[in-house]
C-alpha cells in the first residue's frame, strides 16, 4: 500500500506542476459552470416576465383586481384554487411569487378606507426567497392594481353612490366610534355623494395620504414568508451546471492521467518502474488512486467554489461522497482504457476528446439533463456522463435517497469494473 501511495503522490505532484493539464482539470470545468450558469440564468439577456400565481378567496371583488394585475407589464399571472397549491408552486421554484386575495378583500377606494389597525390584511404576497430582488417590484405592481381599482370606482358615480350608502350604514352601526369622528366621516360621505351626483367627477391625483382609519393602503398588503422547497428542484442554474462541471473535471483528470501513462511508457520511467520490485498491479493501482484522488480534490474545489460563491447547496454530503466516488471510479476506468489504446500522448489527448465530447454532449455535459428533449434523454443512457451527473445531482439538489441513487452508482461502478478489466487485459498483451 505504501508503494501505491508513493506512486499516487508522485502523479499528483506531476499533475499540479503541469499547467496545461491543470487548466483542463480545474479552470476549464469552472469556466463551463460559470458560462452555462450565467446563460441559463438569463442575467445577460432580456429579463422574462415574472410568473405569479393568484388565489382568489374573495366573494367576487377579487376578479377585477386580478384582471388589472394580469394586465400589468412584466407579470405573467395565472390562478389556482387553493393557497396550498399556490404556495407549493412558489416553493418548488415554478413561480416567482403568489398573491393571496383573502375573503375580506374589497376592491376600489373603499378597500383602503376606514380600516382599523387590527384588521387582517386583505392581500398577501409570498415571494421566492431566491428572487427577493423582485419582491419590491411585485409589491409595487400589486399596489398599482389596487389604485387602478379606486380610479375605476370613482369614475363610476352609480357604483360610488352604492359604496357610500354601505359606508353610511357601517358608520351608523359602529357604536364605539367617537362622535366627532363619526360626524366628520358622515360629512365626507355627503361630500362624496355630492361629487357623484354632480356627474362632474374627475379623478386627478389618486395618491392617498396615509392616516389611521383614513384613506390608506397601510395594512392592506401583507408580505408572507415563503420557505423554498429544496426537494427535487434546482435553486439556481448553478445547481445544475456545477455537477456537470465536476464531471468535466473528472474527464480532465482521466485525460491527464491517460496521457501521463503514455508519457511514462515513452520516456522509459514505466520500464524503470516495472524493473523495480513493484508489480503491475501496484503500478496500475498507483495511477488509479492518483486519478481518483485528483478527481475527488477537483470535485471538492469546484463544488466548494460553487457553494461559497454562488450558493450551490449540497443536499446530502454522504451521498455526495458516494456519488463522487462512483463517478471518479468510472472515469478512472476510462483513463486506463484511453492510456492503453493510444500509443502517443497526442493520440491519447486528441482521441479522448474526440470520443468523450459526443458522450459529454448527449450525457448532460452541455445541455442540462432537465432541459433535454425526451429522445435525447433516452440517448443519454449510453453516456457515463449522464450517470455521473445524475448521481452528483442526486446528492446536490435532486434530494435522492440512497435507494434512488443506487442505480446510477451501480452503473458507474459497472462501467469502472468493465473498463478497468479491459484496460488491464490490453496492457498485459501489450507489455507482457
Amino acid at each position: 500500500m505504501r508503494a501505491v501511495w508513493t506512486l499516487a503522490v508522485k502523479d499528483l505532484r506531476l499533475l499540479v506542476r503541469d499547467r496545461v493539464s491543470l487548466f483542463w482539470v480545474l479552470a476549464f470545468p469552472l469556466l463551463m459552470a460559470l458560462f452555462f450558469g450565467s446563460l441559463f440564468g438569463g442575467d445577460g439577456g432580456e429579463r422574462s416576465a415574472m410568473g405569479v400565481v393568484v388565489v382568489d378567496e374573495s366573494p367576487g371583488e377579487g376578479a377585477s383586481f386580478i384582471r388589472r394585475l394580469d394586465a400589468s407589464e412584466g407579470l405573467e399571472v395565472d390562478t389556482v384554487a387553493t393557497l396550498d397549491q399556490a404556495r407549493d408552486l412558489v416553493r418548488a421554484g415554478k413561480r416567482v411569487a403568489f398573491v393571496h386575495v383573502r375573503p375580506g378583500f374589497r376592491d376600489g377606494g373603499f378597500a383602503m378606507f376606514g380600516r382599523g389597525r387590527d384588521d387582517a390584511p386583505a392581500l398577501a404576497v409570498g415571494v421566492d426567497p431566491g428572487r427577493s430582488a423582485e419582491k419590491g417590484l411585485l409589491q409595487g405592481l400589486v399596489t398599482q392594481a389596487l389604485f387602478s381599482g379606486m380610479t375605476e370606482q370613482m369614475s363610476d358615480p352609480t357604483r360610488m353612490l352604492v359604496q357610500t350608502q354601505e359606508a353610511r350604514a357601517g358608520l351608523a352601526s359602529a357604536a364605539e366610534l367617537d362622535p366627532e369622528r363619526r360626524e366628520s366621516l358622515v360629512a365626507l360621505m355627503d361630500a362624496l355623494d355630492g361629487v357623484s351626483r354632480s356627474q362632474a367627477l374627475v379623478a386627478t391625483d389618486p395618491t392617498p395620504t396615509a392616516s389611521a382609519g383614513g384613506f390608506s393602503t397601510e395594512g392592506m398588503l401583507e408580505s408572507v414568508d415563503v420557505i423554498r422547497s429544496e426537494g427535487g428542484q434546482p435553486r439556481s442554474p448553478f445547481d445544475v451546471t456545477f455537477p456537470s462541471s465536476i464531471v468535466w473535471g473528472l474527464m480532465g483528470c482521466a485525460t491527464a492521467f491517460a496521457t501521463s501513462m503514455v508519457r511514462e511508457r515513452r520516456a522509459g520511467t514505466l520500464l524503470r518502474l516495472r524493473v523495480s520490485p513493484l508489480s503491475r498491479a501496484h503500478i496500475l493501482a498507483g495511477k488509479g488512486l492518483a486519478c481518483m484522488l485528483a478527481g475527488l480534490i477537483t470535485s471538492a474545489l469546484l463544488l466548494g467554489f460553487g457553494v461559497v460563491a454562488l450558493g450551490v447547496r449540497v443536499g446530502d454530503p454522504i451521498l455526495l461522497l458516494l456519488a463522487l466516488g462512483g463517478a471518479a471510479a468510472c472515469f478512472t476506468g476510462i483513463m486506463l482504457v484511453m492510456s492503453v489504446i493510444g500509443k502517443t500522448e497526442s493520440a491519447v489527448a486528441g482521441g479522448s476528446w474526440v470520443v468523450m465530447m459526443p458522450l459529454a454532449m448527449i450525457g448532460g455535459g452541455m445541455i442540462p439533463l432537465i432541459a433535454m428533449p425526451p429522445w435525447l434523454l433516452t440517448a443519454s443512457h449510453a453516456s457515463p456522463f449522464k450517470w455521473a451527473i445524475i448521481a452528483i445531482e442526486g446528492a446536490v439538489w435532486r434530494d435522492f435517497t440512497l435507494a434512488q441513487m443506487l442505480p446510477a452508482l451501480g452503473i458507474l461502478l459497472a462501467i469502472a469494473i468493465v473498463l478497468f478489466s479491459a484496460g488491464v487485459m490490453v496492457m498485459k498483451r501489450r507489455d507482457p
Partner: protein
Amino acid sequence: MLSARDLVKTYGSTKAVQGVSFEVGRGEAFALLGPNGAGKSTTLHMLVGALRPDGGRVRIDGEGDPADPTTRQRIGIAPQDLAIYEELSAEENLAFFGRIQGLRGQRLAERIEWGLGLAGLAPRRKDRAETFSGGMKRRLNLACAAVHEPRLLLCDEPTVGVDPQSRNHIFESIEALRAGGCTLLYTTHYMEEAERLCDRVAIMDQGKILALDSVGALIDAHGGAAVVEVELAKAPLDATALPGTLDGLTLRVESDDPLATVQALGQAGLEIRRLRIDRPDLERVFLHLTGRSLRD
C-alpha cells in the same frame, strides 16, 4: 551473477534476438556492443523481465527469475531514454526511485545524497530536471538507477547525446560503481566505451552474438595486425625493396610489432616526415566480423 540462455524474441516476421547466450560473473563489467538495431536493448529488456522472451531463459544471482520482485530488487536499470520525471527536482527523482525500491528514513536520505554526488547535481538538487542540460539528465538517469545499491546495474547506451565532459563524468561514475563491487551490463555502439569500461564484450549484429571474449582476445582473434603508416620526405630510390604498399609518399605496413617496423624503416635510410600507428581495435573487429562499420 547473470545467465542468459538461448534467448529468442520475434516481432512479426522480424527476428529481433536469435539464440543469444552469455554469462556475466559477479563484479564483472560486460558489454553488448553493436550498431543500432542489433538487438541489444531487446536483449536487455528480456534480462530484466520487462519483456517476455519467446524462447530461452534468464537467471539472476543463481536461480532468481527477473519476473520475481525479490530478484528485481537486486537490479538497477538506466534506460536508453531519459527515465526521469522532468517536472520533479533531482532530489525528488532520487527520493521517488529510492522509495519504490523500499528505501526509507535515514537510509533513503543517505542514498539521495550519494546519488546527487554521483550525478554531480548537489548544487542543483532543488531544480527541476526539465531545467537540466542533456548531460546532467543522463547523469541523473544513472544515479536513479543506482540509488538503491543494486548488485547488477544495466546501462542501455548511457552516453547517447551527451557532451564530452558529461561523458567523462558518467565513465567515472560507472568506474566508481564497479569499484564498489557492482556487476555491470553495458550496451553501446561506441567501441571506446566498451574498451574502457568492460572486461568482456559480446559483439552483436542482427540479433545474434558474433563473438564474445575479453577485449584483448577479440582483437587478437579478429582485429588483424597493426598498421604503420609513414609519410616520407622524398621518394625512395628503390620502392620494390620496401615492405607494405607505397602510395605516392605514403607507405603503409601491416605489422605485429609496430615499433620494430618503424625502427627497421629508419635503419633502411628513409627520411620520415610523419608517423602513425593504427592499433587494431573493436571497430576493426566488428568490420572484420560483419563487413560493416559500427556506425553504419
